[in-house]
């Protein structure tokens, strides 16, 4: 029997609908509309966590993902990896899995989920390229309509939001529905595997911090970050020793 959240299959389907809506909206917010940064992992994962009933789980996933993909910038025609799709899918799978296990999200579960879903960041980029191809067809439509004398020819612009919305919504809903499998896998892990996954999550944090410092793209950044890191570690050790 698969582990399910407290509300059973009904709750799982409700969570899938919620994930589809939130992830779909964030997918269009990422590039096509507003760009208020609501689709960044540091926002999206905690929001999904909050919607599912485990804010802390969302935060645990969102922060390292934000640091990992901080350097991804959409400059001109270049596309970065799709951090929003990954954050949405990861939160959609890992947080409900934590609920199904009645333990919440922990480091081994997060590492397991990340290892499984990381290719979605690449896949999301390919999806975005496909959406751009579809947008080129919308441009043709707009040009034809303008030639025919339609002053609202450019209104087709908004149709470009449909594909990112649908794709992200579908993927994240499927991730929620597959979350019991992840919970089952996590429950099968022995002590040694759990310790290994815990170590893996610490290593992910290490890479995430390195990525974040690289993302600043400033020659002074590593030195400043190093000084600050040493200061924080020193201060914490002194504080702990004193108290």
């Amino acid at each position: 029997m698969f582990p399910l959240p407290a509300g059973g299959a009904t709750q799982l389907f409700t969570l899938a609908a919620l994930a589809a809506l939130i992830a779909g909206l964030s997918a269009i917010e990422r590039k096509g509309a507003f760009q208020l940064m609501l689709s960044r992992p540091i926002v999206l994962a905690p929001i999904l966590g909050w919607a599912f009933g485990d804010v802390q789980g969302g935060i645990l996933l969102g922060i390292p993902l934000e640091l990992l993909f901080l350097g991804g910038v959409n400059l001109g025609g270049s596309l970065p990896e799709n951090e929003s799709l990954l954050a949405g899918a990861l939160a959609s799978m890992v947080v409900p899995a934590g609920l199904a296990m009645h333990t919440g999200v922990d480091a081994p579960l997060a590492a397991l989920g990340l290892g499984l879903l990381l290719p979605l960041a690449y896949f999301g980029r390919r999806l975005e390229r496909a959406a751009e191809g579809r947008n080129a067809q919308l441009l043709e439509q707009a040009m034809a309509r303008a030639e025919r004398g339609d002053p609202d020819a450019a209104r087709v612009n908004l149709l470009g939001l449909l594909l990112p919305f649908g794709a992200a919504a579908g993927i994240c809903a499927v991730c929620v529905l597959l979350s019991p499998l992840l919970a089952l896998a996590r429950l099968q892990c022995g002590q040694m595997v759990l310790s290994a996954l815990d170590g893996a999550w610490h290593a992910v944090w290490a890479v995430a911090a390195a990525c974040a410092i690289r993302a600043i793209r400033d020659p002074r950044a590593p030195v400043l970050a190093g000084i600050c890191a040493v200061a924080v570690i020193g201060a914490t050790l002194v504080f702990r020793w004193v108290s």
Partner: protein
Amino acid sequence: MRALPLSQPVRRVSTRSLARVFFRSFFLQASWNPRGMQNLGFADAITPALRELYPEPAECAKAVARHLEFFNCHPYMAAAILGGAVRLEERVASGEAAPETVSSFKRALGPPFAALGDGFFWLALRPAAALIAAASEPFVGLGCVFVFLLLYNAVHLPARLWLFATGYSRAEGVVEAVGRAHLATGTPLLKACAAAMGGALAARGVLAAGFPLRPFQALLVASTMVVAFAILPRLGATRAVYFALLLGLVLGARFV
């Protein structure tokens, strides 16, 4: 510039239409495409102004078609160009300028404004806001989300509004106004702040691995950070994560 037909009255876009143009500027990249990049979004955004300036549908459609030419800029900085384009369209509709003036204006300002916006918003403000928010998480919990959104959008939204308003009021003069806004001078400060916060987060990772009394793990995490920093440009983030997961699995299994 074209000779001015004196009989033509000066046409102006109403505040309501300007507000609609500004609102639609938030959808500038909805149909980003490799051929014209933000052209469809730009044409869509400027349509409310064009409808008012050219009441004749066929004439308006012709003006919309003009804006379906290639256009690319930073999505926030494009607000200045959009505002300026509306002002120039008023001149075109009043017969004070040729339609080519608008195209030249868009072509001339797109690339430099894109570079300015990328450097400030994407490469300085966003990392700084995200790293400050991430560093604040142990103290404010879910509040870190609001810290990030507040820090970022408190600059982004007023900047966008100011750029649009300045573009509309000054048209070609927007270059001078943006130059005086010292966007580029704020960038090093934001980057320094981001670097300090990055260091704090790195320390957090080391401390999380090292407590309670696991100095070897802390050292391992610190070494992984340094190695990852060195090899990241060659490896890329995704592959680096897989290496980290693998390394963590191998080493983590030894600490049962």
